[in-house]
């Protein structure tokens, strides 16, 4: 709530209270490392909690608004200042508390709703996101459009008090598990292609919607293709102005980029440690010198990137302009993540080549294959480099 920085004493008091509350309320089970995907709580109408602990932890945190600590209290948030939110993160990390709720509603739609939504929309959707009641998916890409997002063809025709949506979206993350979708649709075909796009929110149970899972090279099927056949969407479900959806989309893409780029700093076993396990040391050095050199180069770049994430955060806190950095973090972070996976495969040799079904423990190859999508989803590496060249370096257009 408070925009002012907190005093050191106030923060320390907050830290003590937070620690005590977490200690008292975070179930022991929720302090263990995440083992499989079912340990991640996505919420939603149909979510099957893996355990009571998982359900209780979400409920307790949601009651305090701490699933979305910095959102205003009136919308189900915690109303914390940036400093308080940081303290909360630090205390949760120290106690190894799991995240109570992971959702595109929090990481993507929420910020857009806060910025572009009207009171009615904010009041309807934000609290349900905060409590994990509604799981959202994103309807952006279309078959055949790829990087050229703005050439989208799914159209919403004006039928007086509602739109009728027809078309198809692809790469809808967990489209088969989501309750609602935020969706880019074409509402005008005159003028520049970016200027005829609107941003709609609607229930995935509306008649006329169907989904088809897409199997990936990794064996996973996290995405669906989603089909809209005369789907009726009330006009009050339009976010922002008609034909101004592109502005919201770009705002949201920036958030997505930061999230994907951040994967470069995920806490995983360092490649060098895995290498020592599989290859061993000779006279104190990893026994394969050429591989060791590339591991060192990777770990140096990963450390440099992590420091850059910190610097960008610190500069943002200091009020300096950092918006231009989002494409850089997305590009470099995802390329690093791919390098990490390549090296992980190299140090694991034939062990890494094993490729079981999705329930097996041997997931190195699947993870490696999964990373290949990092530099495609959320704007390809090429698109990020274009953005840097044009928006940051101010190089002339082609």
């Amino acid at each position: 709530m408070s925009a002012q920085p907190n005093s050191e004493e106030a923060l320390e008091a907050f830290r003590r209270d937070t620690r005590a509350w977490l200690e008292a309320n975070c179930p022991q089970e929720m302090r263990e490392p995440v083992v499989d995907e079912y340990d991640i709580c996505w919420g939603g109408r149909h979510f099957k909690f893996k355990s009571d602990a998982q359900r209780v932890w979400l409920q307790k945190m949601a009651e305090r608004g701490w699933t979305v600590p910095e959102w205003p209290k009136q919308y189900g948030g915690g109303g914390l200042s940036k400093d308080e939110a940081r303290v909360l993160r630090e205390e949760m990390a120290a106690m190894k508390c799991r995240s109570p709720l992971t959702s595109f509603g929090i990481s993507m739609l929420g910020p857009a709703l806060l910025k572009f939504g009207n009171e009615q929309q904010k009041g309807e959707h934000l609290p349900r996101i905060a409590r994990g009641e509604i799981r959202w998916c994103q309807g952006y890409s279309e078959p055949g459009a790829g990087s050229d997002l703005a050439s989208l063809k799914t159209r919403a025709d004006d039928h007086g008090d509602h739109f009728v949506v027809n078309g198809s979206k692809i790469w809808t993350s967990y489209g088969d598990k989501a309750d609602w979708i935020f969706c880019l649709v074409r509402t005008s075909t005159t003028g520049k292609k970016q200027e005829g796009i609107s941003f709609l929110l609607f229930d995935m149970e509306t008649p006329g919607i169907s989904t088809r899972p897409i199997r990936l090279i990794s064996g996973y099927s996290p995405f669906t293709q989603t089909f809209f056949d005369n789907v009726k969407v009330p006009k009050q479900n339009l976010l922002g102005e008609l034909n101004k959806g592109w502005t919201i989309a770009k705002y949201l893409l920036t958030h997505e980029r930061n999230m994907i780029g951040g994967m470069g700093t995920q806490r995983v076993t360092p490649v060098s440690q895995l290498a020592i396990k599989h290859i061993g040391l000779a006279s104190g050095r990893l026994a394969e010198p050429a591989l060791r050199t590339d591991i060192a180069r990777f770990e140096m770049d990963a450390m440099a990137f992590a420091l850059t994430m910190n610097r960008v955060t610190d500069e943002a806190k200091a009020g300096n302009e950092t918006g231009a950095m989002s494409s850089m973090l997305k590009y470099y972070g995802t390329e690093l993540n791919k390098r990490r996976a390549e090296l992980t495969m190299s140090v694991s040799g034939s062990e890494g080549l094993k490729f079981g079904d999705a329930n097996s423990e041997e997931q190195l190859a699947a993870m490696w294959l999964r990373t290949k999508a990092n530099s495609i989803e959320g704007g390809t590496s090429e698109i990020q480099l274009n953005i840097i060249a044009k928006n940051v370096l101010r190089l002339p257009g082609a």
Partner: protein
Amino acid sequence: MTLTLTEDQLMFRDAAKRFAAERAPVSQLRKLRDELDPVGFDRALWKEMAEMGWAGVLVPEEYGGVGFGFVGAGLLATEIGRNLSASPLLSSAVLGVTALLRGGTPAQKETLLPAIAGGDLLVAFATDEAVRHAPYDISTRCTGKYKLSGRKLHVLDGHVADRLIVTARTSGDTCSRDGISLFLVDPKASGVTITRSSMVDSRNSAVVELRDVVVSDADVIGTFDKGAIVLDAVLDAGRAVLAAELLGVAEEAFERTLNYLREREQFGVKIGSFQALQHRAAHLFCEIELVRSVVLRTLQALDAQEPTASSLVCLAKAKASDVARIATNEAVQMHGGIGMTDEFDIGFFMKRARAAAETFGDQYYHTDRFAQLAGY
């Protein structure tokens, strides 16, 4: 020797090219995978391949083969790489045959080579014990005269082989090049347990466990305790042929990508007109040309048993592994989302490039070995 193919070699290659594309394309590998095929390749097709001279490509005519040498084997492997054809060419016709040719007794050769060349007998070579290739890191024990005990990883086609060739330590320390011996082992013998592994490239790999498996003097391949000479020859043969296969993988992935770049439109233009992609493609073209030269020269050097052939093998395996990695990664990236779907074939090439690179030493292993052989 010139770095071009002879008329005979060109004809052999062209026949292989047609056969692989028509009878053993990527769709066949997909089918084998989807149906969880217990063999992992089509036995009847292998018999046909044998009739075309594939199974006996390295086998001299006196033993019923076609004697096309490593250059010939490499030509087949490149076409296999282009089509991801599933077959026991590498395991049986290259590793198995090379072991027998370099270390087999007259009796072993006469019994086994014609059967291998005819496609009727499959041999698998069981040597690696560490997850990362380390050829002399062998601790499979040989006690008495002789009982073998140990555990072998990544044995290609191990679960369907009619004979295993197994390396074991008969003296010396683990990691020493001295004291290694090779044995012919019957996979049905008491104490042998073979477990197939499910691999990312949908090709065959097995773990072979040996517990007091009895073998006899007649089963020794090469000189007892000095088996590393044969082992080195077998590994170099496998590496060179894998390099040829990786060349095919890189070529095919690159050509499919070029086609995509020429056809796919984004932002109202063909994506192949984007200069950044053009330059990456042009650079990759150069790298593939280099691999082409290196692979041919290496296979020629192996056929001629040149003393510096091992350095060339390092170069070929390292360069082909690295370039196939780049080519298949660029292929997936340039195809974008569609390239990530299992429905589309390009991912199969990336998977095979990775598995073939890891087998018998990747670019890291062979870069360091190249420097070692050059004395630095």
